[in-house]
């Protein structure tokens, strides 16, 4: 018997609000399956399950806000006998949104309509839509402004979208969505939609908390290096010439992969500082800082960057940027980064000295790629595209000598782009 708990999606998260269940009791779930949508300060996040088994009971109802680690559902492992009917009651509701004592799944909105939740003062006017519902609406071609939301705060759920698509009166009770319809695992790279239900004030608070903690606790030190990019850009130009637009690579993906390969050589920078000691990351999962329209940023992780070919990483990056902006990030993406990269983009500033995202122990910054005078191998003066690479590292976990080796390794990998 396993308990599915409210996940911690980063150092700054204390609580989350359940927006929608995407499974119901009796459903079989797999590892990595998205089972719920949770509203956090970073917007709506799709929460994955890390167990295989059968959903026995849902312990939280949509609208309830609970602290991290609170049990949300009971999941029976494959082969295990069904558990007793008696269940632990849901934890005492910490917010007015959770006044109900009875926990009912979202599958029966007509039987247990959620009481209206007082909207938070900071929430901007606009529709609240779960990512799954948004995708369903896109699939069915339903304009979201014609859908009546029955979720917390009037949020639009998958069932609402399907009801609207059938032309049913939105107020009428709608049947529970089938699991197949509720979880369309359709990523839509390149087709991000408006990120609704995202609260810039809450996002600002989350960033403030994490960055204040970082500067309070982490003794940062910084190193920077200038790296020639002519080989990398020539490689990209040659590669992209033969490819249609959807398969083209951006410089970002070379910087990402070069960083991952350098971390293989200097694993002391890949991981976390926890309880007074360094814990190496379980893989090289790189957070990529993505600026959000309307303010703020998120740094979701791309998993196992060192092991994946460039086209796959490019697709992952495009998908991630699209979902970061449309509010469809997964819990594992927010929780798993072992080091974060910030890249200022083609026309950004020349260099950046990042603030480490705790409990990570280092962060890499890339400025814009700019053309500057450069002395080549033969001693001649030439114009070259260059990029400023910077590293902010935690002095509790590493020293400058090691960090220097790491920057040199990144530079080295960028001189051999065909091996990336």
């Amino acid at each position: 018997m396993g308990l599915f708990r409210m996940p911690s999606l980063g150092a700054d998260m204390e609580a989350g609000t359940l927006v929608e269940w995407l499974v119901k009791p009796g459903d079989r779930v797999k590892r990595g399956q998205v089972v719920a949508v949770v509203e956090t300060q970073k917007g709506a996040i799709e929460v994955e399950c890390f167990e295989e088994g059968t959903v026995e009971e849902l312990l939280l109802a949509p609208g309830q806000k609970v602290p991290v680690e609170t049990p949300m559902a009971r999941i029976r492992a494959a082969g295990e006998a069904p558990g007793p009917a008696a269940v632990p009651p849901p934890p005492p509701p910490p917010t007015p949104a959770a006044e109900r004592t009875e926990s009912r799944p979202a599958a029966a909105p007509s039987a247990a309509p959620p009481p209206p939740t007082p909207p938070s003062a900071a929430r901007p006017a606009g529709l609240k839509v779960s990512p799954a519902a948004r995708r369903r609406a896109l699939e069915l071609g339903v304009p979201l402004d014609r859908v009546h939301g029955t979720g917390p705060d009037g949020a639009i759920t998958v069932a609402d979208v399907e009801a609207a698509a059938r032309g049913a009166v939105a107020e009428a009770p709608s049947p529970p969505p089938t699991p197949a319809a509720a979880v369309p695992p359709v990523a839509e790279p390149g087709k991000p939609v408006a990120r609704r239900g995202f609260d810039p004030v809450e996002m600002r608070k989350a960033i403030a908390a994490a960055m204040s903690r970082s500067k309070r606790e982490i003794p940062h030190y910084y190193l920077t290096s200038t790296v020639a990019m002519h080989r990398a850009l020539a490689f990209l130009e040659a590669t992209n010439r033969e490819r249609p637009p959807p398969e083209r690579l951006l410089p970002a993906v070379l910087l990402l992969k070069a960083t991952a390969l350098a971390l293989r050589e200097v694993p002391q920078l890949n991981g976390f500082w926890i309880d007074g000691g360094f814990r190496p990351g379980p893989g090289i999962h790189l957070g990529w800082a993505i600026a959000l329209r309307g303010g703020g940023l998120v740094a979701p992780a791309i998993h196992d960057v060192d092991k994946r070919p460039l086209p796959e990483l490019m697709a992952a990056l495009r998908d991630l940027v699209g979902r970061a902006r449309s509010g469809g990030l997964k819990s594992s993406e927010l929780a798993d980064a072992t080091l974060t990269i910030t890249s200022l983009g083609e026309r950004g500033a020349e260099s950046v000295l990042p603030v480490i995202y705790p409990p990570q122990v280092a962060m890499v910054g890339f400025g814009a790629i700019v053309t500057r005078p450069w002395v080549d191998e033969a001693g001649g003066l030439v114009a070259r595209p260059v990029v400023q690479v910077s590293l902010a590292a935690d002095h509790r976990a590493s020293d400058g000598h090691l960090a220097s080796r790491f920057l040199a390794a990144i530079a080295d990998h960028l001189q051999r782009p065909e091996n990336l």
Partner: protein
Amino acid sequence: MKREELERMVAEVLAGIAPEADLTTVEEGEDLRDALDLDSMDFSMDFLNLVIGLHEKLGIDIPEADYPKLFTKSGLLTYLSAKIGG
């Protein structure tokens, strides 16, 4: 294809990338990337998505070497109509 029609199609592609971007507010010679805040922190990801969107919608190839021709609104529309007109 008429220029107005073309502009509408570009606006549709843009809506999928930057929903709040309003092409009608952009002046002819203005750089789209500045005017619409494309590519904030992710290396012309938005611009690439624009090229991909146009590629898929209009069925035209846009080589990377041509990107600079697409940076202004008038440049983009002129380029597209030339491509489509053949």
